């Protein structure tokens, strides 16, 4: 916990109106410190770009060899709805907005193998079965 300050720089700024967000690369210089937590960074970057901290998503941080310098990616959404809509599930879980759904691996594999036997969506087969059942009655 040295008294040195942390410098946060952004580069390669780009607007992405299709996903209603702004994306950039974040460089952090933190001599004497191990790492800066994402929560801290959210506030810092939010103040830098004049947005609320909860619309800022940070990911992919890697510290350079020797320490003191890290690089990562940052994405700032225009609204909470856009965030929920466009962010991938694992990052929403990290932010705490969604919770992880526990699904056993075995169940997933079984469902997938069952689906392999049906060609396409299986809508026409279902219709045919219903018709058969109706005819039998």
């Amino acid at each position, binding site marked *: 916990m040295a008294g040195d300050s942390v410098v946060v720089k952004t580069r390669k700024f780009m607007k992405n109106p299709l996903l209603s967000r702004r994306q950039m690369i974040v460089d952090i210089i933190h001599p004497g410190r191990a790492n800066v937590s994402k929560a801290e960074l959210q506030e810092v970057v939010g103040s830098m770009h004049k947005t609320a901290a909860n619309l800022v998503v940070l990911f992919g941080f*890697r510290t350079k060899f020797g320490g003191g310098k890290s690089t990562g990616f940052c*994405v700032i959404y225009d609204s909470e709805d856009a965030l929920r809509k466009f962010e991938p599930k694992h990052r929403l879980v990290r932010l705490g907005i969604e919770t992880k759904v526990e699904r056993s691996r075995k169940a997933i594999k079984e469902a997938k193998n069952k689906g392999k036997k049906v060609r396409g969506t299986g809508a026409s087969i279902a219709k045919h079965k219903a018709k058969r059942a109706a005819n039998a009655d």
Partner: protein
Amino acid sequence: MTSDQSLELLTCIAKSNSTVTTSLHRSIQQYTHNNEYNAKADGLDYLQVKNGIMISYLIDLTMLLRCKLNAGGDESKDVGEHCVKRLQEMKVALEKMRPLEKRMRYQIDKLLALSTLGAGTFAAVGQEEEVKDGSDDEERGEGGELDESDPLSFKPDLQGMMNMFQDDDEKQQPANDSDDESDNESEIEDKHNVTLEKDGKESGVYQPPRLQAMPFDNNDLIHEKEERQRQKQLARMQRSELAEVVRAQYTDAPEEEDIRGGAMLGKQREVSKRLAQREADVTEFEETHMIRLTMGNKEKKERKRIMREEMSNLGAIADLGNVVAGVDDAFGDGTRGRGRKQDTVGNEKFVTRGMRKRKVEVFEPQSSRKGKPRTQNSFQKDLYGGNRSAGNSRRKK
């Protein structure tokens, strides 16, 4: 005297020429004008036309040369002009014939081969011929057969194609019989199921349909591989530090030094340059696509190894690795390769494992080794000759 005789001969030829041509003219006119000549039946063969045109082209050419040599008088000029006109006509005719010949080439070649090698060499048209040809082939032996990979021996297999269509027809017949509308869908389904089951029962492996035989030459693949390896080694030797130093001696360009004063030259520099390039590529990709890539285990290990070697400075002293590889292949024992064993060096047996020769304990009588020749590659054979060893030369003296 021979000159008199030749003069006589030439005058004789000239006289007989005149008589023969006149009589020929008359007979040809009679033949054509009496409707004995039918263009369709008696017409010229394509090949005959070609040969005839070639010969008359040559004749006209010599005539033209003679006219040019004489060069005096109007007569020769006229004759020369007529010659040139005829030559032009013939040239155009030959050019028009060329594409025709190209299309017929396969058939002509086949007929030629048939005439020289006999009828049993080609894929049979019908089954009867197959039976006959089989017996003929046995009698004739190797001389009359075309090589299996020769493209001339392949013919489209019409019978096979017929079989393919027949199978389809058989499968479709039961479908055409049913006329009920209510059970239509179920029948279609059953038919589909039946066909699927049939295919499944025959074999689980997909086999592509065999429509035409194709020639396959395995030697090409081996040669290509060897060629590629040779090229790679050549390129590596050219890029090596030794070659660069020698090249630098003979160029007039000014010498270049890097910031470290040329301390880490050669292989090490190349490798680290390549690494740096790769790292730059990776970071570029990551930053444009905002995604982090992972490094595989192999890459990690290689990097560690290179870092370790970089710390030590042995490479700067003398790294002849690239050159040594080629030299060793030429002058070495020829035993470094995949699992090649060398018989003996002196009285002991060695096995090449990795980069080193390891001694192997073998309990065998020594006399057995004298019969086996030492393995040599072509370079060594040229240099040192056959299976000579130093001892033999002494014995002869």
